[in-house]
């Protein structure tokens, strides 16, 4: 296109670069702050870790050791919780998404709308509703799982429904049936393979959202079962900024690879669609 004005291009690029800086600069700062010795700036966390290690070193990883020692249970439980989330979303969302696309019943549209409703309702309010409805004041870890599922399931279902709606799956299934395949055989050999990409991306998305979720989880966390954001909140309110930075960097180490894989997979898929395959 040769009719672009220079001004428009400048504005578009300028604003994008500005936003990019806003996104990246804090992340880089936190990562740097987690292992650089900042006592030369007059900021130090020595008292928190008992002054172990040489104070003259420029680079130190002792804060990571401190965080891992203190918050290992939350980290492990956070990963477990996210994996449970993925499992539940696959078991509930895949058959459900399929049935929603088939529009088996007149109310399917309403169910689909209701499923997306949590995305426009504050998580904190739902968590209070859950606590009251099931009469458990700061109770069981499955209530935490339940709250998170409500906020991750829409992503899995949307990923399934949008794939099924992007091609004529009904004809393909009818073809399989006419060739003698039974219902389960069709599911296993035709429908599920076509959903492979959607399921991988959906699962990674569910994992990432669950691991970082705080709004609905905050009041549902129990003293024994807390996700990693609860540990982050604890470091932010009770610890120094370098311990907090180390904890945040550990969080990033888990979440960023997942997000990058989602992008890489998504890109390949879109380019395949663009090529008309």
């Amino acid at each position, binding site marked *: 296109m040769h009719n672009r004005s220079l001004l428009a291009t400048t504005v578009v690029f300028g604003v994008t670069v500005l*936003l990019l800086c806003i996104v990246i600069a804090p992340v880089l700062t936190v990562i740097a702050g987690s292992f650089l010795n900042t006592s030369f700036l007059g900021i130090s966390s020595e008292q928190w870790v008992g002054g172990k290690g040489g104070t003259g070193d420029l680079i130190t990883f002792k804060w990571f050791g401190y965080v891992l020692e203190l918050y290992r249970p939350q980290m492990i439980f956070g990963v477990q919780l996210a994996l449970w989330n993925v499992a539940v979303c696959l078991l509930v969302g895949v058959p459900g998404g399929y049935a929603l696309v088939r529009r088996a019943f007149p109310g399917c549209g309403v169910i689909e709308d209701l499923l997306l409703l949590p995305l*426009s*309702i504050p998580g*904190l309010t739902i968590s*209070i*509703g859950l606590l009251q409805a099931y009469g458990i004041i700061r109770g069981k870890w499955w209530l935490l799982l339940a709250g998170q599922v*409500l906020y991750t399931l829409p992503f899995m279902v949307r990923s399934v429904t949008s794939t099924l709606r992007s091609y004529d799956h009904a004809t393909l299934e009818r073809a399989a049936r006419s060739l003698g395949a039974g219902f389960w055989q069709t599911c296993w050999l035709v429908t599920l393979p076509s959903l492979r990409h959607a399921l991988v991306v959906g699962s990674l998305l569910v994992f990432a959202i669950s691991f970082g979720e705080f709004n609905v989880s905050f009041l549902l966390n129990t003293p024994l079962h807390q996700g990693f954001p609860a540990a*982050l909140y604890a470091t932010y309110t009770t610890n120094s900024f370098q311990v907090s930075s180390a904890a945040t960097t550990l969080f990033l180490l888990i979440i960023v690879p997942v997000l990058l894989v989602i992008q890489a997979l998504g890109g390949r898929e879109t380019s395949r669609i663009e090529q008309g395959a």
Partner: protein
Amino acid sequence: MTGTAMPRQQLREGLLLLPLLFVVVALLLVPLLTLLHSSFQGSQGLVVGQKGGGWTLANYTQFFLSAASRRALGNSLWISLGVSAFSTLLCLAPAWLLVRYEFRGKRWLRAFFTLPMAFSGIIIGFLTVIMLGRIGVVPRAIEALTGSDWFYGTAYGFGGILIAYLYFEIPRATMTLESAIQKLDPRWELAAASLGASPWQRFRFVTFPLVLPALLSTFAVTFSVSLGSFGVVLVISKRFSLTPIQIFEEVYALSNYEAAATMSVVLIVLGLIVNFLIRTLAARVLAHRA
């Protein structure tokens, strides 16, 4: 299809839907109705398990008579409206860039823009304090460069909250706008250009009206996210109140679940009303065009 195959197939699909239906009813509708119910119940205060004084409107009158509650609700509403408008307009640029321009590293750019998606409010609050707080990186750099200490503690004021909220709206606004712009046919603009329209005229009379519904729906998405967020303010500010913070305090400090339920209902209804108004407006824009 034979006559007997149809109901069997329907039954099977119904069974597939059953777990989903269970989740929607048990985890969404039941808690919502419980909130509504307990917002009309007499307060039990600190005594857990003791039945309250039956149906009453006292929770709502108490909420709307309290100046602190009204101020928190106003803060929630105005911050969310302002931040969503701000982030929707700003993110038009990266969304446009991702769709209409070809350049190397585009996938990386998109990856960076989705990064904040998995950050909860508390993390963003912490990032804001690191960058703009009392010993923040940016104020220190500005002081080193210009000698001005004016920027110290920006994080704790309105500006800090605005930037923090913008941070988590960036991926949401950009993704929503990107998929909307993908659906725009660039030939509309080419046609306008061939008829002699200047770049500004093309934007004002062709592009802008075409993306207006997308802008409105992006505004609705970002508004909902902002309205429910409390992590940022939880970490950043102690003197600045929002309705979600009040809800948290009612539960955490006072165990007053009825008051918390009342505030929750008010917040949910406010969110749904604004969403409904924006959707109506978007529908009107579309109808006006047709």
